[in-house]
């Protein structure tokens, strides 16, 4: 649970100057530490490692990071690259990163948050620039980065509220982690702006990639009367369920509408290219310092996908109007009063949730069921 | 033996040699098997009889020499090829699938087995074969329900069904009653009369004289001679076999007469016990065993002897009744209790329960003494002390062993038996139960073993000797009990007992049925 009282000192420092939201630039949850930058590296001497949680062929999360790597390769063709897929959440992760270091990597991107399993190596490999996606423990040589996915999620949530007839939204969740809480909450908040009675039921399947589990969860949710499925999965299983059942679905990561063109509404799509290229450029130039936590904003790293073929124009227009407001005015819907699932007020009236709070959201709002820490 | 100069041998072995590490098993052995003869292969344990036959049937490859069949040189790579060429062997330890029925075993791995045949078809075919060869078997019975004699008939039937021209039998009568042996001999003669040949491996002189046309004697891996049985006597055979004057007598003389009966040290009181299949194995048995006597248990194998020996040593718990030691009933008759009391046990099937074949000789030799000094010190076990004891037991048993660290399965069956016997005698302060101790042993070894038992008896130990050899029982026992279908049919002083009567009781014939 995150509230202002519990934010530690370092984090509090990071929050300073965050009141004026300008969502067109990457949001720094925490600024780079004032450490000495790592020395410059010649492009031909550079070795850049990427470690992924899933297979590149997943057409989802890992694929999007791989696209980022391809962009880096195009920008710095003389550097050498190491890329490892399917890294498990076990000591093998530590071993793989250790191996990258011993292969001479100058820069390593972990595209998932392995936490200690990375720090075990990164703390001892201080001349390597480390990146941990969705990481929350920066160090002099390690930066975290993520996306402000709650904004496009809210936008798609509005479309869901308009499209759902039953007002019951289903969510296929991986783990009860902040990404999932902020996703479900933003989604339902968007839907409730057009259908105040909408509710969201989540099913946790304990995996990011489990087509069988996702399919079962999707089916169960549809059986419960949900006519709009959303979730955070690296594959398209529940989209296919929605297609078969003639209901709606919104996805994550990439455009995978071909698995269910009729059911497809939109997707929370990722784009890491600019961020990666920029970071590598800094590292090579000798300007890189760690300790940052960056959240890529909507329009520059995260967005909603082009609307599905069956999404009525007025629904799209209504949702996009809100998106424009966010992009142009820096408007945020995440303003109190917000109650949690037990009815307790967690965000006082008038308080605009900070990006840090959104990023670390770990409680469900009223109307969300099936998610518990 | 017909005198015709040289009918071509059906099988001829020429100069066969086979060496195992440290042992010459066969050296320059010639052997001819003529059509229409029963040819006995006689020799002590370790004389090389089994090795020679294993060479013939393709289990071993000879180091030198040649095998000719019908005059042509052959080499079988496996017993399967040998049987295809018409040579079938029935081993001492049966190679049957215990969980299968008789019919299934007969048809297993046989090219004439009809595909997709139902159980009843297989059983009908087996019944037909059984009648054709005069070997009574129960086609529907499972192998593990059968007595050793029945199992042997199944093995022989298996071989004969595959149209064998040459039948090799390794110690076939070791597991048979006299009556069963007679049935076997009859079947063998019929087989011979049809122009086929039999190789009969044995160390029993009487039966060699009875059944064989010719006999080849092996000693120390070499051939001593081949002779027609007409020109042999048992004395001559024994001399050739052991290479020295061998007297089987002298047993009676060794028995020290007693003026009065010893006290009862071990007794069964109305004991009933189940066998492994949960059927009645022992029924209401009363059996007192006295100190300083040899009590013989006569009977055809499979009539409760196994259960009796196991109940008497704590391996099997009785369902009802009491076991008394020195008049005191045992609360918890478990093997360690009997070990503590000083009851030795030479088990019926040493490979199954008497030894651990894969463990070193040393570990096997100390099975009864590992828990006490000098081998055990507190929780520790001294391999050195174990080796010392094993060496002593091996020396006492007159078994020469290459290394105490080699697995005991590398020893011959006879040597294993000698070690087990010595090991058990060491602990037998109160009593010893010896089940078929002479099974698979040669004349010399049997004599030695029986003398051991007599010595124990003379020292005041109670000896229970389970045997099928009536002559053996009449030679050495003080009293004889006869078992039939789990019951003790009668208990006699040996000097008053009548061989004929005991034989009838073994067949289940009591006075009443005789009268009827």
């Amino acid at each position, binding site marked *: 649970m995150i509230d202002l009282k519990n934010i530690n000192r370092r984090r509090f420092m990071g929050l300073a100057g965050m009141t004026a939201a300008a969502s067109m630039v990457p949001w720094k949850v925490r600024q780079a530490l004032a450490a000495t930058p790592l020395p410059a590296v010649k492009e031909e001497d550079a070795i850049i490692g990427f470690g992924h949680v899933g297979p590149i062929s997943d057409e989802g999360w890992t694929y999007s990071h791989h696209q980022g790597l391809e962009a880096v390769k195009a920008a710095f063709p003389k550097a050498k690259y*190491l890329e490892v897929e399917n890294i498990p*959440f076990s000591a*093998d992760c530590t071993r793989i990163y250790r*191996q990258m270091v011993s292969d001479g990597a100058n820069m390593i991107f972990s595209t998932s948050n392995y936490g200690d399993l990375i720090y075990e190596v990164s703390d001892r490999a201080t001349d390597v620039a480390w990146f941990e996606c969705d990481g*929350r423990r920066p160090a002099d040589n390690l930066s975290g980065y993520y996306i402000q996915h709650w904004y496009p999620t809210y936008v798609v949530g509005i479309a869901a509220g308009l499209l759902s007839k039953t007002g019951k939204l289903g969510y296929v969740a991986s783990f009860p982690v902040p990404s999932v809480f902020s996703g479900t909450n933003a989604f339902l908040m968007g839907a409730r702006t057009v259908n105040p009675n909408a509710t969201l039921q989540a099913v946790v399947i304990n995996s990011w990639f489990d087509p069988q589990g996702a399919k079962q969860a999707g089916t169960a949710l549809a059986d419960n009367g949900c006519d709009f499925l959303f979730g955070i999965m690296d594959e398209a299983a529940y989209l296919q369920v929605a297609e078969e059942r003639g209901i709606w679905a919104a996805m994550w990561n990439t455009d995978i509408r071909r698995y269910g063109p009729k059911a497809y509404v939109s997707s929370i799509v990722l784009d890491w290219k600019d961020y990666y290229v920029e970071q590598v450029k800094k590292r090579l130039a000798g300007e890189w310092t760690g300790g940052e936590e960056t959240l890529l904003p909507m329009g520059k790293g995260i967005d909603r996908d082009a609307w599905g073929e069956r999404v009525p124009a007025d629904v799209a227009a209504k949702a996009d109007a809100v998106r424009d407001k966010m992009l142009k005015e820096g408007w945020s819907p995440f303003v109190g009063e917000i109650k949690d699932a037990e009815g307790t007020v967690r965000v006082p009236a008038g308080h605009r949730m900070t990006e840090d709070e959104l990023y670390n959201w770990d409680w469900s709002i009223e109307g969300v069921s099936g998610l518990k820490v | 033996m017909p005198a015709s100069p040289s009918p071509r041998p059906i099988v001829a072995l020429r100069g066969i040699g086979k060496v195992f590490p440290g042992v010459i098993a066969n050296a320059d052995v010639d052997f001819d098997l003529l059509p229409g003869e029963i040819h006995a292969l006689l020799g002590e344990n370790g004389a090389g009889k089994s090795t020679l036959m294993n060479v013939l049937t393709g289990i071993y490859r000879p180091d030198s020499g040649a095998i000719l069949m019908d005059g042509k040189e052959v080499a079988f790579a496996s017993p399967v090829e040998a049987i295809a060429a018409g040579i079938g062997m029935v081993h001492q330890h049966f190679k049957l699938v215990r969980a299968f029925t008789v019919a299934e075993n007969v048809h297993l791995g046989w090219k004439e087995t009809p595909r997709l045949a139902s159980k009843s078809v297989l059983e009908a075919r087996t019944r037909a074969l059984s009648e054709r060869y005069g070997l009574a078997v129960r086609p529907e019975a499972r192998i593990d329900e059968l007595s050793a004699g029945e199992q042997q008939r199944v093995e022989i039937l298996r071989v004969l069904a595959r149209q064998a021209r040459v039948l090799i039998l390794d110690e076939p009568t070791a597991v048979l009653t006299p009556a069963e042996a007679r049935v076997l001999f009859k079947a063998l003669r019929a087989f011979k009369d049809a122009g086929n040949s039999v190789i009969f491996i044995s160390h029993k002189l009487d039966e060699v004289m009875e059944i064989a046309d010719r006999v080849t004697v092996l000693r120390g891996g070499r051939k001593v001679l081949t002779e027609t049985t007409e020109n042999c006597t048992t004395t001559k055979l024994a001399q050739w076999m052991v290479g020295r004057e061998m007297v089987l007598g002298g047993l009676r003389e060794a028995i020290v007469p007693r003026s009065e009966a010893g006290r009862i040290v071990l007794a069964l009181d109305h004991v009933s016990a189940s066998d492994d299949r949960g059927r009645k194995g022992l029924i209401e048995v009363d059996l007192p065993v006295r100190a300083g006597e040899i009590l013989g248990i006569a009977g055809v194998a499979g009539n409760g002897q196994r259960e009796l020996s196991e109940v008497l040593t704590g391996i099997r718990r009785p369902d009802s009744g009491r076991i008394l030691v020195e008049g005191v009933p045992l609360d918890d008759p478990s093997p360690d209790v009997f070990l503590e009391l000083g009851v030795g046990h030479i088990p019926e099937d040493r490979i199954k*329960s008497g030894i651990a074949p894969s463990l070193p000789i040393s570990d096997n030799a100390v099975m009864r003494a590992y828990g006490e000094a000098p081998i055990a010190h507190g929780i520790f076990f001294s391999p050195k002390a174990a080796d010392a004891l094993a060496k002593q037991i091996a020396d006492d048993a007159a078994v020469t062993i290459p290394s105490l660290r080699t697995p005991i399965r590398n020893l011959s069956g006879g040597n294993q038996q000698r070690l087990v016997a010595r090991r058990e005698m060491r602990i037998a302060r109160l009593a010893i139960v010896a089940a078929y101790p002479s099974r698979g042993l040669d004349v010399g070894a049997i004599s030695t073993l029986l003398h051991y038992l007599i010595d124990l008896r003379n020292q005041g130990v109670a000896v229970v000797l389970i045997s099928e050899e009536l002559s053996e029982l009449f030679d050495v026992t003080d009293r004889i009990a006869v078992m039939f279908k789990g019951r003790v049919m009668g208990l006699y002083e040996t000097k008053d007992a009548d061989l004929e009567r005991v034989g009838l009781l073994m067949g289940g014939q009591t006075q009443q049925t005789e009268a009827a």
Partner: protein
Amino acid sequence: MALHFVRSPVVSSARALTARVIGFVLALGLGALVLGIAGFDSLHLGRQIIVKSLGSQFGLEDLGLLYTPLLLTGLAVTVMARMGLWNIGADGQFYLGAFVTTAIGLFIKGPEPFMLVLMFFAGAAGGALWILVPTLAKAYAKVDEIITTLLLNFVALLLVYYVATGPWRDRVSGTTASTGRVPYKMPDFFGSLHWGFVIALAAPILFALALRYTKWGYEVRLSGANPDAAHYAGIPVRRRLITIMLLSGAIAGIAGMLEVAGTVHRLQGGISNNYGYLGVMVAVLARGSALGVIAGAFLMALILNAGIILQTQGLTTSAVLALTGLIMLFTAIADQFAHYRLVRPRAATA
């Protein structure tokens, strides 16, 4: 006449080893060939594996950290194999050991040395507890231990997933799907290699010594070689079976404890890394010998480490898995082949 294969039931160790070396080399050769066709420089990869596993600090650390759990799970399976039983549940016992260790580490406070000792015994107890039901079922109802131990793996996995993502979920650093960091740590002695490695290496030696130099060891050897003979010798076979199975579980549980306290420091879903199942492979490689576990686990650790190296060299996990499988398959084939000898019909000499 054609050549024939004849099977002999017993194989000498030298013969078995030769067959394995041949199988191993063949598997490597085939793997290299396929990689070569796919455009990889097999020789270079091979050199990388050797140099990086054995020739660098990081490589040796990694090797040691892989070796540690494999020694213990391999031993756990071997211990039961001495009784003629298969512990397919070492993975579950590993999880339970890790689970109990984490529970104590997270919720009890105390001086570190004391806590580590407590965690060690608790981990062992956790592993033993997890095999208790299969043990009793085996000892008193003859229920097949292969099935029961295997099925409990899934229960243990789900339990760990549940606590790691649910009640014990890390609320401090937000690490996905794992518990908070256990504050007590096995001391390191070589980079990140901790003293658990020494414990793991000592365990098979201790077990081998116990088998040979204790009464209990003799009874276990006899009970394993022939339970009927052991019963005949007055040994309480059932009690030995129970202690051996519990010991096996405890050893796997210690592997889980060391993985938490020495290597990962948190409890998480994938923490066993299949070490329990790999322990079965190690035991097969070791051919039932406790000391053979030291060699078998080393080979397995080397293979796993090679897998890591190959991944950073651009091979996918599937290719690495296929290579590992290939080596195992050829080893199994070699083990079978060792039983056969080629018999050539002799030329007529008579």
